[in-house]
């Protein structure tokens, strides 16, 4: 009965993130936009593995009555999401340190003023 509400949420998050990256002026808001897109894609990965009334895929002490493979939610997309989160942390840390250096050199965080390399 979750129909495809999570998929609508995913599309909404991707478009919100893209809006933030395209139209916001502040660099940090662009970085936040990218992390919104990332969480949207992660949500999409997780909902792919969802099963009605599934249990978390851990073997130790399963709740009674859950037959072994069918009663569980798919573990593979969760592993993919975990890797994507790890990579997201690394990219975020890199972007924020670059923003700090840009602020030191350019004195501003306005993306339209950071345009020395153009034409």
């Amino acid at each position: 009965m979750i129909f495809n509400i999570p998929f609508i949420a995913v599309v909404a998050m991707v478009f919100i993130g893209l809006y933030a990256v395209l139209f916001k002026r502040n660099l940090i808001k662009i970085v936040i936009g990218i992390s919104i897109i990332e969480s949207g894609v992660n949500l999409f990965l997780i909902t792919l593995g969802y099963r009605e009334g599934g249990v978390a895929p851990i073997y130790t002490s399963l709740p009674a009555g859950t037959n072994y493979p069918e009663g569980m939610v798919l573990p593979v997309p969760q592993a993919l999401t975990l890797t994507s989160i790890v990579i997201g942390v690394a990219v975020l840390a890199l972007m924020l340190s670059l923003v700090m250096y840009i602020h030191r050199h350019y004195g501003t965080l306005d993306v339209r003023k950071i345009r020395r390399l153009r034409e």
Partner: protein
Amino acid sequence: MNILNLLIQHSPALIVAVPLFGAFLTPLISRVNEKVRNIFAIFVLALTGVFVLLLSSDVIPNGPRVYIFGAKDHTIPVLRILFEVDGMSIFMAIVSVILALVAVIYSWSFMKENSGLDKYYTLLLLLTASMLGLELTGDIFNFFVFLEITCISSCALIAFWVHEGEAVEAAFKYIVVSAIGALFVLFAIALLYGQYDALNIATLASVIQYTFLDKIALVLLVVVLGMKAGLVPMHMWLPDSYGRAPPSATIIIIGATQASLYGVFRVCFTLYGGIFRDMTLSSVSVGWIIVILGLITVLVGVIMALIQIDFRRLIAYSAVAEIGYIFLGIGVGLVVLGDPTMLDVGKTAMQGGVFHIINDALDVSLLFLVAGAVYYATKENSLNRMGGLARNMKYTTVFFLIGLLAVAGMPPMNGFASKLLIYESVYRINPILSIIAILCSILLLAIFVKVFHSAFLGPKLPRFKDVKEVPKSMLLAMGVIASLIIIFGIFPQIVLSNIVQPAADSLLNYGDYIRQIVSSFSGGM
């Protein structure tokens, strides 16, 4: 002899594991002293080069080879991450290893006065390991992870000269565009995994039908990997970041760009290979998109290169134009994929495109090395303030001449052979394409003649009185690439039949790539 077979059997894993191990060992080794770390970095890359040659001696004669991580054989459905090495991926691995080795030799003396060099060498080796992994992997999610590691490490390398404000700005633009691109690649992978419950390229290629979601995934993958390779409207990060990165690091970032170029071909010819062979309408449309975008890339790259004042930014634009030629060649191969009448045209176009990958990589990296040498000697970037450097930088001028002739595709050098193949095959598809391509190649020659005149010829400027020739290791690196360019130029047929033909054929007959995994696969030439 079984040691050699053992090595060959394990070399796909070792090709990625050795530079990765070297990357993490460099901080510890650099506590000993500088020289030991440089030697260690060169030793690691030489070892990787040996493994790549060993693997190519096995993969080129007898077809793709599979290496499964963690277990002897794979289960159906394929759950383990596995490397699948065929002619095309080993060809790209050879290109990447040559560039990496030359870059490390070059940066021995080029980066001597910079600080924080153990981070620099760690990033170089990490970028090499992820680039090689990107080319050898047979698993789509693994492809995404290696693509992301390449993005992060090349962005950190672009921003290496932090005291120069513009390098950080270029790195920020690069990481913003690449991060969003990589997330859309992950979205496409999730689409494919959601439908077919398989992450392995070969299994996906055998079960894929052209549903609406697959079209979305195809568009996402082709456009993102095209953006990371530098297709025109999305190429703008490339001149900014190549222009400001340290030239020795730019060489390996060129390798990373070629690797994402390989990604486009792997997606179009293997993953969607079955669809593009049966439904020629879709292959014609995607092929024509790539051909037209490739042609515009050549045009814009050359026109914009003419007005550049900054030396390295001009070479970056010529790199964009060269990548346009590769897209032109391979796009034509994709257009005629369906109908068997134009088979030989498609084959020559593919060979031209693939041969041009290694030629372009060598030419543009030689030019960047020369630009680095000029920057090292004169600390000068803009062409207006340069002049008369030929007097006291003799070898660099000779290397620049070789690079100039090669990039413009003049006969004795290697650029001519691959461009000739591209012109001839593209001419038979549509004469206008090859006419524009030839004109742009001439314009490229005109641009580099201008650069040669204003930077090297002309009177002796008082500012450059005490400019002396660059140290030995930089000359050695430039010499290696220049000799490779001349050898490929004089004997194109040898290179063509040994390395390029198996690579182009392995892309065309994708059947045995899939039969390695899905043994019951019947389709495909």
